[in-house]
């Protein structure tokens, strides 16, 4: 069928089963937006900033398990996508970005809104295409989706010059992908499985260290089977949160810098550490040389480059996690049936640590405590279909600690890149993916201002989200570090809790604003916000000096983590 390149882009997206894309039009992408106006089955969500569009596509991808699609114009439109692309790269989120480019004869001439976006994004994409011939357009988009979602998921970029979008050609969507160099592993070596299963089964102190790859690999059911088959304790990383039901008796928290002490003790004193789609990030390991010193490491990953990157793997298992975990579950179950005992004393030990070192904070005093906000949110949403997104900082860590994620893809956060401002647009994208779910963005006041404009998108596009703003008036995590490691010299961290007036701002954006200063108000506001079916900002004015504990100081061994310390200073509460 004859059509323009712009129309062809949409036919490609339709052929890929794309339901929604997030973007903003501009000069170099106009022929494609004209094609959108002429008709497509793909819903277009108009963001207010391309960064927002990118994070929405990420939120959509993480909530749905499908590829997220963001679309933007050339130059600044494209550069505004760089942060979401980098974020998707670090967290392995499948993302296809389509950008307009200046006309092919103008490329390289510093034309208006020209920038070399394929060059700029080279280190943070799995692959990218600059389509200079319309005949290459459909194969490039087909390949883009294939690369984004196969192997280890991640971002790709297709840059399409304006004249390519305008050229009329005979369109046909290719049925196959011609990528001779792209061969992610599809099978798991049975010998490696057998060896791993034996090591896991006979371990006296095993731990399953579950990362985001388990969610990306749709391997959560198989993980559940393995954990139950072997009676194996599970810790889930920030990115893996939700891969294993957190109220399950085999779930033992979250490892790393602000994970509970019992989780870190379990990880660091285990004899067999089974890393599943996890990558030994420095925020998880603390001082690498001191991390889990006695453990035999079994590392399962679809990306061979993660094996032995940071911690040498004793038993590498490369391949899709769903089939690897399914095989492991079967083998481990066989060992148990043969009489190899479950590690009950070890489970008792971890439970004892959980009793000895619980998450603690001091709820007394005039201020509403941030931890209490998260506790109440957990209590009020328990058992409901809720998807949580977060920004980055103290509130994110408290969300990890106090919210229990029971289902896969119900906790969406920026783990690797640590992108402040991720929460609100990711929530909008998650709502587009899961309209029936209540989508809550737990945000900090620092993060909020970075992407608050997307509240407009939530309102106008009828993708309502509830923002629970943990507002301490500070860039809280930086403040905490300054107080702990820089002799308390506060350097440019004070934001003020009431400028802007967040509730008024929410109203200005067409949403509902509420201010909460104590627990009673908190309960009322949360209960209302969760049932209103509108975009709501609950501005929770919390104790500005509360710090996030426990904590592994940078460079320290995980076992030396600091436990809760009451704030050394106090800040008076007005009224």
């Amino acid at each position, binding site marked *: 069928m004859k059509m323009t390149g712009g129309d062809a882009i949409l036919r490609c997206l339709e052929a890929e089963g794309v339901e929604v894309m997030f973007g903003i039009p501009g000069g170099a992408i106009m022929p494609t937006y004209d094609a959108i106006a002429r008709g497509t089955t793909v819903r277009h969500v108009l963001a207010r900033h391309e960064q927002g569009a990118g994070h929405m596509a990420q939120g959509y991808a993480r909530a749905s398990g499908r590829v997220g699609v963001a679309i933007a114009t050339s130059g600044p439109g494209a550069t505004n996508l760089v942060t979401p692309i980098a974020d998707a790269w670090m967290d392995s989120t499948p993302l296809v970005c389509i950008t307009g480019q200046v006309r092919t004869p103008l490329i390289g001439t510093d034309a208006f809104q020209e920038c070399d976006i*394929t*060059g700029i994004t*080279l*280190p943070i994409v*799995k*692959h*990218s295409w*600059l389509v200079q011939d319309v005949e290459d357009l459909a194969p490039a988009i087909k390949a883009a989706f294939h*690369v984004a979602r196969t*192997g280890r998921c991640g971002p790709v970029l297709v840059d399409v010059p304006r004249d390519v979008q305008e050229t009329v050609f005979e369109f046909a969507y290719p049925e196959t992908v011609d*990528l*001779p*160099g*792209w061969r992610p*592993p599809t099978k798991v070596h049975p010998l490696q499985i057998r060896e791993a299963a034996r090591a896991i089964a006979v371990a006296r102190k095993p731990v399953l260290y579950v990362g985001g790859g388990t969610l990306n690999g749709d391997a959560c059911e198989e993980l559940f089977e393995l954990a139950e088959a072997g009676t194996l304790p599970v810790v889930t990383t920030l990115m893996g949160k939700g891969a294993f039901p957190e109220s399950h008796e085999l779930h033992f928290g979250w490892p790393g810098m602000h994970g509970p002490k019992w989780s870190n003790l379990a990880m660091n004193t285990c004899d067999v550490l089974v890393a599943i789609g996890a990558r030994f990030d420095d925020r998880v390991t603390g001082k690498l040389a001191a991390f889990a010193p006695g453990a035999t490491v079994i590392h399962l990953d679809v*990306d*061979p*480059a993660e*094996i*032995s*990157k940071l911690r040498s793997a004793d038993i*590498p298992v*490369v391949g899709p996690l769903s089939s690897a975990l399914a095989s492991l579950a079967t083998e481990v179950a066989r060992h148990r049936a043969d009489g190899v005992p479950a590690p009950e004393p070890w489970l008792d030990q971890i439970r004892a640590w959980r009793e000895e070192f619980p998450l603690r904070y001091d709820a007394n005093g005039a201020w509403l405590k941030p931890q209490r906000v998260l506790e109440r949110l957990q209590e009020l949403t328990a058992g409901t279909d809720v998807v949580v997104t977060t920004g980055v900082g103290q509130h994110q860590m408290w969300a990890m600690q106090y919210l229990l994620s029971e289902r896969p893809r119900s906790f969406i956060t920026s783990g690797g890149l640590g992108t402040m401002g991720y929460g609100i647009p990711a929530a909008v994208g998650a709502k587009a993916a899961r309209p029936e779910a209540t989508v809550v963005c737990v945000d900090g006041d620092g993060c909020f201002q970075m992407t608050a404009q997307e509240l407009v998108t939530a309102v106008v596009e009828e993708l309502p989200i509830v923002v629970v703003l943990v507002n301490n008036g500070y860039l809280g995590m930086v403040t905490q570090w300054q107080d702990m490691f820089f002799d308390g010299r506060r350097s440019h961290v004070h934001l003020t809790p009431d400028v802007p007036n967040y509730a008024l701002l929410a109203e200005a954006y067409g949403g509902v604003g509420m201010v909460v200063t104590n627990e009673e108000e908190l309960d009322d506001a949360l209960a209302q916000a969760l049932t209103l079916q509108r975009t709501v900002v609950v501005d929770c004015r919390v104790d500005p000096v509360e710090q996030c504990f426990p904590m592994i100081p940078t460079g320290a061994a995980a076992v030396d983590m600091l436990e809760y310390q009451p704030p050394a200073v106090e800040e008076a509460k007005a009224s």
Partner: protein
Amino acid sequence: MKHTLSVTVEDKPGALNRITTMFARRGFNIDSLAVGPTEREGVSCITLRVDCSRHTLEQIEKQIHKLVNVLRVTELVPGEAVERELLVVRVSAPGDRRAELVTTAQALGARLLDVGRESVVLELAGSPEELDGFHQLCEPYGVVDLVRTGRVGVPRASAERRVPRRLAAIR
């Protein structure tokens, strides 16, 4: 320790750029680099010389292998591969010492490419070690310009046919 990697890639725009960007980003250093066509149309070979530990080498191999345009990564193991390089040098050669230089150079297999009043241009193709020796030989005369192509290589024909060494994790 130095290692030679032979990387075959689809001859697509940016393929080399993706490899060098990956090296830069991950903090790996490239000692030498040679790029050219192969026996297969649309396939180029990039030969990289790197100075790193065995662990880093495996990381490099795996990271290169993930690049979409990369078809194959193999290490050219010393003793199991023939490696060659081309050196072109302009050497200062006043009349009284010219004959001595040219004779010695030709005895080593070098060719005389150009002759000027003050200098001569010589080329030598050979193993990188032979080139090192030739370079040293030219030094006393005064090396004006010297370029080397970076090494290229193929597995030995005489060596028993064996599977090129691949990384353990994807074997």
